[in-house]
């Protein structure tokens, strides 16, 4: 029996119920997408898109999601490092807090952000009164809300990766003369490559779809804070055709991101 089998041989070993259930699952996920494609009023494409501000929503979505992803990596990777390596007291509490946005409804996150960074918020107050900086109703507010929900995903992926790396490499690097910073840069981060990529993709995918925290904290204004999900929400009853097109744009974007990363999301290896 050789080690390479023809695909036919493999398929015949998968039980039928598995096929059926998998089929139902696939159809369940695919049907709404197919529905969008079918129900879209393709003949009115141009008018519908300009009517719902598709161009600015698209631009905002790209900018906000990318900036949020970069920020999530910039802050999330060091945070994951501290959680995985540094002997801080109450580490599990800190980790629970950091991961909270993943579990909380995004609207709750938005309300929390208002309480903290809104004009009347705990820190937002002196940002506004002292420095004249206001985050709400601005693109930076959208970025803040999106980073809030994305960063935990980076932390989770990175921390899991750090735990799976043999720490002896870091000790070896030190014994061979590397400062901690050099060892991280030249030894650990390259080994973390796949996990970092997975974290970035997850963060970006989450950022693209972010709605609840954004609309609560940053508000909803075309051209300034209305990302694609917000635009869809506003258009859905007044302009269903436009809403469908906006949704399709989001779908295409998301599919693009996921296909580009292929197996890396589930493997992270």
């Amino acid at each position, binding site marked *: 029996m050789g080690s390479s089998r023809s695909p036919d041989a493999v398929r015949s070993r998968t039980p039928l119920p598995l096929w059926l259930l998998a089929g139902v699952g696939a159809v369940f996920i695919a049907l709404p997408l197919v529905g969008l494609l079918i129900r879209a009023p393709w003949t009115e494409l141009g008018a519908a898109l300009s009517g719902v501000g598709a161009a600015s929503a698209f631009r905002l979505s790209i900018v906000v999601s990318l900036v949020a992803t970069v920020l999530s990596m910039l802050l999330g990777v060091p945070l994951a490092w501290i959680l995985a390596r540094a002997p801080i007291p109450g580490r599990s509490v800190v980790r629970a807090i950091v991961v909270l946005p993943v579990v909380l409804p995004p609207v709750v996150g938005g309300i929390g952000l208002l309480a903290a960074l809104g004009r009347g918020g705990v820190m937002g107050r002196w940002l506004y009164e002292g420095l004249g900086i206001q985050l709400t109703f601005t693109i930076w507010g959208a970025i803040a809300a999106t980073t809030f929900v994305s960063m935990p995903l980076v932390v989770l992926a990175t921390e899991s990766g750090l735990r799976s790396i043999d720490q002896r*490499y870091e000790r070896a690097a*030190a014994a*061979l*003369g*590397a*400062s901690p910073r050099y060892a991280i840069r*030249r*030894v650990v981060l*390259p080994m973390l490559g796949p996990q970092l990529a997975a974290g970035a993709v997850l963060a970006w995918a989450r950022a693209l779809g972010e709605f609840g925290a954004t609309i609560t904290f940053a508000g909803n204004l075309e051209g300034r804070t209305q990302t694609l999900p917000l635009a869809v929400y506003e258009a859905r009853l007044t302009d269903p055709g436009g809403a469908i097109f906006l949704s399709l744009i989001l779908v295409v974007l998301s599919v693009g991101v996921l296909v580009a990363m292929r197996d890396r999301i589930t493997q992270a290896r």
Partner: protein
Amino acid sequence: MGLHADFVARRDRFEVAVTLDVADGETLALLGPNGAGKSTVVDALTGTLELAEGTIELDGERIDLLPPEQRPVGICFQDDLLFPRLSTLENVAFPLRARRTEKSTARARAAELLERLAPDVDSSAMPGSLSGGERQRVALARALAAEPRLLLLDEPFSNVDVSARPGLRALVREVALGFGGATVLIAHDPLDALTLAHYVTLLEEGRQTQTGTPEQIRAAPRSSYAADLVGVNLFTGVLEPLEDGAATLRTADGQITVAPEATVAHGSQAIASLKPIDVSLHMTEPEGSARNVLRGTIAEVAVDGDRARVRVDTRPPLTAEVTAGSVARMGLRAGDEVWASFKAVEVSLQIEGNDDEAPPAGTLGR
């Protein structure tokens, strides 16, 4: 001036107390069973573990207060621990680059070392594509890259398969002998220690139980571990092939017949080991197929539970392991004449090549 270390180190509940003196150019082997504290000693020397008490001096300067990255120590690890995402060349250049050596200088020196120690390895290859033996050679080069003053070799042969070991062992010996500073070799297998080191120190449960040259320990083992250790019969000498494919190994104090796997060149250096259990003792000259039959006087009988070790004054001297029952049955006592026999194929042979310059290690006196 070398290494002078006198310290106590603790990890979890385990305490290790050692005194190590290794002069420049010397190699000290640290031997001990699993759990004896060898890796604790290594970590203390590299700086990964802080000392509880005592000091470590290298060439007269204290290094125990320095963090690992500032110690002039080069280390080759048991699991090579080559950085997976760096090429071979980058791995070897790593200690230099970590110390801010300019890139091209570092790479040039790394290439030099690789050429010398692992000439068959592609410098742009990734560690994952190399064999165990090749990786260990690269690791050795990496250890030497930053011109350390203390070389630590942490069980370098463990993860190398048997066929690659002789070559690697020869290389390590060459490196250790050529190394200007002090070398500390951590070993689990006594063969490594006895063939590569000038001095051996035995570590058991965190304490040094014996230190000396291999001969000194062999002559007077002070613990059962030491006794087990030197219980391996060790022969070093030159080979003379015989007509039937076998060979005679001439040692300083006798000769034995061995069975090499391939034809050997006349005059090849070889190291051979024979387990005491494979040596049989007889009161009269035995018949049978064993190629080695030696006659001599019993020097010592040491009974330990239901085993006994019998040292016989044959040429070369042998240690046989028999049951206590046999000792009783045969009435073996010091001074008795016995015949000792063993098969040529039971001798484990390592041919070192026609190396006349380097004296076989382990035979250097001091």
